[in-house]
């Protein structure tokens, strides 16, 4: 069996006296859709921030194995270095570049795959011109895939909410990731939009060969999408398994519904 694309070993994150993540283990294999669930404040977003380099974890290892490459440890790398190595993310509350156009937002995603420097920008030689043409073409192609082309020259701020969410995914995909981390992609969406998101995520996995790790509160979406689910509470992993296993796991039910639940069973 090949090495998991992302393997997290005994990861801990402490803020002062608060243990936000406590010796967490997790692994994601190529082509999987994995969900990370848990009650509010369980440490899910902190986990994302550790993995993507926004925080440096206090202890533990984060190992990635990009396709056709060797396993490498990425603790303590900066967010941009993590993205360069092939992990892209979206944010819980949409963080688009509001005053840039939709196309430019995606072009920013391409940034780390381009090389033009200051001299290139000023003299605009052949290689820079070609690179610029290519980036516009590539970015447009990504917008086509996510059916955002009708907004191409609109400012990101003027997009409807569902389209903003899609644009965030488009921007992340532009960085050519092998693993996409989605932080509550369905938050604030209506059932119709959630359904479309469900199809989109499966489509990304199947046609773009991108593995997916998502945090989500919409249980219907999580159960229908995920191959495997990890459950966190108070910074610890309390369960893992297939959707069926998680649904009937008493520990998970207790974490979600509280202690009193025992009294009724």
């Amino acid at each position, binding site marked *: 069996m090949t090495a998991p694309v992302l393997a997290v070993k005994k990861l801990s994150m402490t803020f002062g006296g608060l243990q936000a993540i406590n010796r967490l283990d997790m692994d994601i294999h190529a082509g999987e859709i994995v969900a990370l669930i848990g009650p509010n404040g369980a440490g899910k977003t902190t986990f994302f921030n550790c993995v*993507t380099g*926004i925080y440096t974890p206090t202890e533990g290892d984060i190992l990635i194995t990009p396709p056709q490459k060797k396993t490498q440890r990425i603790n303590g790398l*900066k*967010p*941009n270095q993590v*993205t*360069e190595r092939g992990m*892209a*993310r979206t*944010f819980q509350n949409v*963080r*688009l*570049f*509001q*005053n*840039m*156009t939709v*196309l*430019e937002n995606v*072009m*920013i*995603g391409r*940034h*780390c*795959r*381009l090389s*033009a*420097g*200051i001299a*290139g*920008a*000023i003299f*605009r030689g052949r290689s*820079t011109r070609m*690179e*610029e043409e290519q*980036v*516009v073409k590539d970015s*447009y192609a990504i917008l*086509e895939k996510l059916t955002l*082309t009708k907004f*191409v*020259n609109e*400012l990101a701020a003027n997009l409807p909410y569902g389209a903003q969410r899609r644009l965030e995914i488009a*921007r*992340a995909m532009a*960085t050519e990731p092998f693993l996409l981390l989605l932080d509550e992609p369905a938050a604030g969406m209506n059932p119709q939009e959630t359904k479309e998101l469900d199809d989109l995520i499966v489509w990304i996995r199947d046609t773009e060969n991108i593995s997916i790790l998502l945090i989500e509160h919409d249980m219907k979406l999580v159960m229908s999408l995920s191959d495997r689910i990890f459950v966190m509470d108070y910074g610890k992993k309390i369960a893992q398994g297939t959707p069926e296993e998680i649904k009937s796991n008493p520990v998970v039910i207790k974490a979600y519904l509280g202690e009193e639940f025992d009294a009724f069973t």
Partner: protein
Amino acid sequence: MVSLAEIKKSFLIAIWFIFLTFPIMVIRVNTVHNLIEWRWRNMILVGIGSFILSFFWRHLFKKKERKGPEKPKIPALVKRISDDRRLFLPVITGIASFIVLFPFLFSMYQTNIMVSALIYVMLGLGLNIVVGLAGLLDLGYVAFYAVGAYAYALLNYHFGIGFWFALPIGGLLGAMFGILLGYPVLRLRGDYLAIVTLGFGEIIRLILENWNDFSFGPSGIANIPRPSLFGLEMSIETHTIYIYFLMICLVLFTIFVVNRLQNSRIGRAWIALREDEIACQAMGIDKTKTKLTAFALGATWAGMGGVVFAAKTTFINPVSFTIWESIIILCIVVLGGMGSIIGVISGALVLILLPEYLRAFSEYRMLVFGTMLVVMMLFRPGGLIPDVRKAYQFKKRNMES
């Protein structure tokens, strides 16, 4: 129609203004006769004036609200001119011939003012990189201007280095100091960054003022040579015209470079940094590198502007590099329209030329100037000519598929 409530509101405003202006408009101490004059007529005029103006003011606000969000009228005009060939050519030739003929049509005094304005255009475009594009609020920008000016003055004094050699050195030194300032403030943003850059600007000025052995202190450096042209002897008039055209070339060069940077990979990274620092990093942009290039490239223009300033005035001392200069340059960028090249140019021309031509209002000059700034920011918060993002055209074929 005008309602009773509105009349009441205007009446209160009038009373408030009478109260505010009472000490300066009504009371006057006549020191010759040791008398206090009560100019009641002024009070009535202020009252009537503010009563009428308040109606006008409210009318403007209502009109603005009815129009909804700000519509970019002027950018549309600029865009129409640049898109339509028939309009574009005559407009550009018109502007170009005016620029070329300016020093011959107007007096030397006017040309001199124009040269100062052009230096500020260059400074504004430089600061626009830092503030307008990268969103890093820099209140110490004048420090780099000082670095450029002193670089030329001192290099010339000690080593006899000429203007043309000093110009790139000034730019380079500006960039170096930009990185020097940029490095420690990488973690800071917004208000905190503003305070630190403000401190940096003051440090540079205080060093220049107090390190007598190095910078000749408050007495400054005199007899800085004007720029040369193949060793030709020139009168002051020709020299002024020469510096004018030199500045025009430098400004054109600045516009060219800034425009190219703005629409490049680096320019996009700057704007992304301005919009959202965390998302920008998560998209694979190296924050450190992007911030430092913004500081360095912004400061380069200030360094070069400083060299020209020293050559133009032939005398510099630390008084020319106070915090007030930084604020004026920042005003140019904000008033003109952050991130917009045409905006910054018009901002610089308005802010530098207006106070000169407002001399007709003599002592009320700065009052009129201040009022205009306030009105401007209330009615056009995006600046004179706000930035418009580049639109890309795609073929119909792509659109359908």
